[in-house]
């Protein structure tokens, strides 16, 4: 049973209001927080790349081990070697940023191509894609990555390429489903009756006008996952190695001191992971609710 306000909400989706006026406050707040996190990550990445840091992330100071936040001019305190945690957090973004983008680029580009083939051409490509989807889903991703690590001892870019490949079937089935839905619509039929070449229909009318939000959402959620995997691997000792900072190996290095009550050096990177992944999740879900019209009740 629908409450009248829900029905009204549904109608308002089809009105000509811009999307931010139709969207619920919660979704807007999600997106705003997500965009804040994305900006923070981008700015920090740039700062780290340009080495504009409050302290040298490798500078050891024996007099100031595991210092709490604010002591001795260290805004977020220091770790077990007296290195500035804030600087290490900023530099730690290097560990996942570009590898994460690589994973997203691979899963979105290959996934879109496959999805277009399956959705537009249909037929025999369909069961094949769902087979690959199930095949990839059969592996716990971390186990698959450990397998690849055992085989190749790869660096993080190769690992993230594998992560990207495992994301391909998911994107493909998403795009294929959307295209199958769009193909029933009159404007696609009209376009092909008008004699528009197939690549124009696919690239412009299907992908650009109707799938780009889907791809943006996919990229957002993909980045959250890439961060999770990179930090998990670094925590397990397979990713970025000390002394190069990554949020995962910072948590790991601080863990011994956590149990002695010096919880800060591993909590700071853990909170960074938490709030960043939260940001990407909320951004993805908020955009999904607003742009794809799947409203949170």
């Amino acid at each position, binding site marked *: *049973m*629908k*409450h009248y306000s829900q029905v009204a909400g549904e109608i308002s989706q089809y009105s000509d209001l811009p999307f931010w006026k139709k969207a619920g406050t*919660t979704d807007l707040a999600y997106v705003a927080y997500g965009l804040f996190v994305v900006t923070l990550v981008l700015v920090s990445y740039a700062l780290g790349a340009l080495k504009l840091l409050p302290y040298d992330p490798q500078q050891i100071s024996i007099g100031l081990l595991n210092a709490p936040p604010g002591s001795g001019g260290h805004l977020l305190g220091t770790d077990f070697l007296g290195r500035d945690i804030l600087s290490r957090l900023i530099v730690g973004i290097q560990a996942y940023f570009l590898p994460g983008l690589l994973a997203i680029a691979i899963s979105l580009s290959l996934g879109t191509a496959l999805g277009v083939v399956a959705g537009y051409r249909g037929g025999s490509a369909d069961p094949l894609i769902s*087979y690959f989807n*199930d*095949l990839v*889903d*059969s*592996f*716990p*991703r*971390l*186990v*698959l990555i*450990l*397998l*690849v*690590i*055992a*085989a*190749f*001892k790869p660096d993080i870019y190769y690992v993230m390429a594998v992560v990207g490949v495992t994301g391909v079937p998911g994107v493909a089935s998403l795009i294929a489903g959307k295209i199958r839905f769009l193909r029933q619509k009159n404007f696609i039929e009209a376009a092909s009756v008008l004699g528009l070449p197939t690549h124009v229909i696919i690239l412009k009318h299907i992908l650009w006008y109707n799938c780009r939000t889907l791809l943006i959402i996919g990229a957002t959620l993909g980045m*959250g996952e890439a961060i*999770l995997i990179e*930090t*998990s691997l670094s*925590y*397990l*000792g*397979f990713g970025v190695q000390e002394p190069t900072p990554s949020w*995962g190996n910072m*948590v*790991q290095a601080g*863990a011994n001191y*956590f*149990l002695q*009550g010096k*919880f800060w050096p*591993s*909590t700071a990177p*853990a909170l960074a*992971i*938490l*709030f960043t*992944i*939260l940001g990407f*999740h*909320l951004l993805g879900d908020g955009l999904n609710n607003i742009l794809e019209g799947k409203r949170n*009740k």
Partner: protein
Amino acid sequence: MRPAAIRPIALALSREIALTALLLLGVSFVVFLILYLSPGDPFSVLLEGQTVGDASRAGIREALGAPRAWYAQYLSWLGNMLKGNFGTSIRTGLPVFGEIVRVGLNTLTLTLGSLLITLCIAVPIALHAAVRGDTALSWPLTMLAYVVSALPVFWLGYLVIYVFIHRFGLFPLISGSSAAQEHAWLYFMVPIAVLGIGNGTVSEVIRYLRDEMSRVMAEDYIRTARAKGGSVWRHAFKEGLLIPVTEIIASKIPFILGGAVIVEQVFNWPGMGRMAWQAAQDRDFPVIMGIAMVAAAFVRLGSLLQSLVYAAVNPRGPQE
């Protein structure tokens, strides 16, 4: 059940079983391919630090079945595996199958237990949201679910150890003492609870269950049941809860197994995840291959069980 209804179920199930077999075949091929393509060979790990002549090197390779064509290697590996022979660990020299069975049970307890914890958290919240709609509680609960799903599980583990064991001394840390024996079930429960909360799927599970339940609550047959004064719960249970729960469990097993790798590391839990970690360190190919196969089989078994439940609840079979 009428005999006429059995046929479509049997058909659907045999299709599922065939698909499962096909998928496991694919999995085995992927596993084999990755390790076949790897540079060098694992035998160099075995011979590391020893001065060996080419003859003994070739001897070891021969003994482990290396110098054959790739398909011969694949088929013999597959054939052995079907017979329950997963090879021997390069590091310990023990048969892999026995080792996996030994630690696999621990991982099974960990994953199934934490699935149960996840459901205990998610089901009440989802039902509450679906049945009562927006309440004062729904926003904080949604937010909490998001935060919990983004928590790095390795840090959550340390937090729990610190808060409950060190800070409040709720149970003693020293293992092996009589006190620890007494509290053994607590040590058992802590990693399970940590993985159940921190496996990163809670908010997704809640959302899925809530959406499915609200969809069912809006169906005509529920309205009819309500109008007749019948039990809404009895009518909504199968489609609104049972099927979505089995679906989401089946699809989240891989994530939980992945989380188990980390939680086993944090808590020193003697399971498959730790073994996989060790094997990846040592390039112990037979072990990591065996674990990947067993994990994939576990995932496929989950989805097979899910289609079984689906077929039992919905005898019409899947609607194409």
